[in-house]
């Protein structure tokens, strides 16, 4: 190393500024999420007052029944047993899809990757369709999500086996295998729909996604799965940064690329599988959120992941609230996210292309 420089910075002003900006972003996002939860709890068939929502939640958390003593006895039930589980579920699934998408784009080095790139959604849809078609009720309410999860996990397993033959996991192999397996499964789903006759509407409805009548059990399940996954992802976030310089470089910098990729791939896919099992197929959140957030935080995964988590939660919760409480009739959440997300993605893409053209000229 030469010691020719005299412009050595006494302090790293750029980095401190960056860290401060990032802390502010995170605090703002977290505040926005909390606000969104409270506002969303107010809205619906019965409008609950802002302070009443806070009181109901506070009463639940602190166990002081006195706080809700003078309000309509129905309100706490509506907020605590109907709205909050659904609201939290939507937020957690949004967070899960967003971080899963972030990791998929990072591992596959492809900005078009999303949580469903490896066919997880098709696998889950196939599993759910089988459960609905055969009317498997032995696990009661949970048989469809369970089958969806099994379908997703089996698909993931198969895709990884298919793509890791030969020279280890490469992103092209993974994407191709995912596309092929998803195509086969889609044909299978079409066939199942054809067989389903009068059940076909149930299958279609499930595929379009919904958070209706989620329970606290769903909230707990998704929170544990996605929370654990998030910690695993944060642990490998720095390695994921290095992988974006290419496997050869990452490996020369001390990253066990094969192991890190496998761990992250499995984590992101399991998160995606849990999300799909709980809510059906909700597109565009996992594709769009990492893109939007990357524009603000930059591509460093240590900042990108937490910011995506919060942004995904806010957006999907917002979308679910719109369909639940704002629109005159509830439309499937998967349709809504695609209707909003598609054009937004086009806009981002168009702006980026324009920016690149501007630079080239």
């Amino acid at each position, binding site marked *: 190393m030469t010691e020719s420089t005299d*412009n050595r910075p006494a302090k790293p002003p750029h980095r401190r500024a960056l860290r401060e900006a990032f802390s502010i972003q995170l605090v703002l996002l977290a505040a926005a999420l909390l606000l969104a939860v409270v506002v969303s709890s107010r809205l619906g068939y019965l409008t609950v007052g802002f302070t009443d929502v806070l009181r109901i939640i506070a009463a639940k958390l602190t166990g002081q029944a006195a706080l809700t003593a003078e309000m309509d006895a129905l309100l706490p039930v509506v907020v605590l047993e109907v709205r909050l589980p659904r609201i939290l579920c939507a937020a957690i699934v949004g967070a899960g899809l967003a971080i899963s998408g972030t990791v998929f784009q990072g591992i596959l080095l492809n900005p078009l990757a999303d949580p469903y790139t490896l066919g997880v959604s098709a696998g889950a849809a196939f599993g759910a369709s089988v459960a609905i078609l055969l009317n498997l009720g032995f696990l009661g309410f949970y048989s469809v999500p369970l089958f969806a999860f099994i379908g997703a996990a089996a698909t993931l397993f198969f895709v990884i086996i298919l793509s890791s033959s030969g020279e280890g996991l490469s992103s092209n192999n993974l994407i191709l295998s995912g596309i092929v397996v998803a195509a086969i499964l889609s044909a299978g789903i079409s066939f199942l729909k054809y067989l389903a006759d009068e059940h076909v509407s149930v299958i279609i409805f499930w595929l379009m996604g919904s958070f209706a009548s989620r329970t606290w059990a769903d909230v707990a399940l998704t929170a544990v799965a996605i929370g654990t996954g998030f910690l695993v992802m944060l642990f490998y976030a720095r390695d994921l940064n290095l992988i974006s310089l290419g496997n050869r470089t990452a490996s020369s910098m001390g990253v066990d690329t094969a192991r890190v990729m496998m761990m992250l791939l499995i984590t992101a896919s399991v998160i995606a599988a849990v999300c799909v099992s709980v809510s059906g197929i909700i597109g565009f959140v996992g594709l769009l959120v990492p893109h939007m957030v990357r524009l603000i935080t930059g591509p460093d995964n240590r900042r990108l992941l937490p910011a995506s988590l919060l942004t995904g939660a806010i957006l999907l919760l917002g979308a679910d609230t719109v369909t639940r409480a704002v629109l005159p009739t509830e439309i499937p959440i998967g349709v809504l996210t695609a209707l909003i997300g598609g054009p937004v993605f086009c806009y981002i893409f168009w702006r980026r292309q324009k920016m690149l053209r501007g630079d080239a000229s």
Partner: protein
Amino acid sequence: MNLRLEQVGFCYGDQKIIDDLSMDLPPGLFYGILGPNGSGKTTLLDLLTGHRKPTDGRILYGDRELSDVPRKQLAKEMALVPQNFYVNFPFRVREVVMMGRYPHIPRFRPPSAEDDRIVAEAMSAAQITDYAGCFVTELSGGEKQRVVFARALAQNTPLLLLDEATSSMDIRHSIQVLNLVAQRVRAEKQTALAVMQDINLAGMYCEHLIFMKHGRIVCHGPTQQVLNPDTLRRVFEVETKVYDEPFSGSAQVAFKK
């Protein structure tokens, strides 16, 4: 530390990429690896960084087998400037150079003032300080390659592996980068191992040349001894004249059309 290859072989499927390589690479020298396309040069570097494992023989780093040295430790011993320097996401230049410090910084700790100093020095050495805040994705090929070179410098390792590290740079920057490497080797007793395409640049900078063809070593030794028309004919199948060139003070090669 001494690198020793003992009958190293590497197969890719049925194809033998590296075949029975044995040599000693004592530290403190600027080595050049020359050979036609597909002669196994990059694979040899992959074996040395531990990115690939030899299918035959073994590589000794000091008195330890290379595969026994933990990856994290190896990353503090050797840095690689790869041939492909594509960066997939819009990181800023200084972020990429800072990645060179990752092997020295615990996973969840922010960089220290010392790390910042080393990064600033590496950027200044590679003459990219002006671009520190730019997005890597917006730079030209040669500029990007200098960023990647600075990243490897920031890794601050005794051994530097260069895989056609100046292939996209203009001649001024090529010379400046190679001067920097040569100076590290001379003044700080570090080791450089460079895969090169430009035989004249190799003749100017490398003290020791390794000629490869079909995954084997054709010959290796001090530049003055091995850089001659006979070797070049055997390795590259071209007719050449090798002469001492006083202006550069080194052996230079002229080619027959």
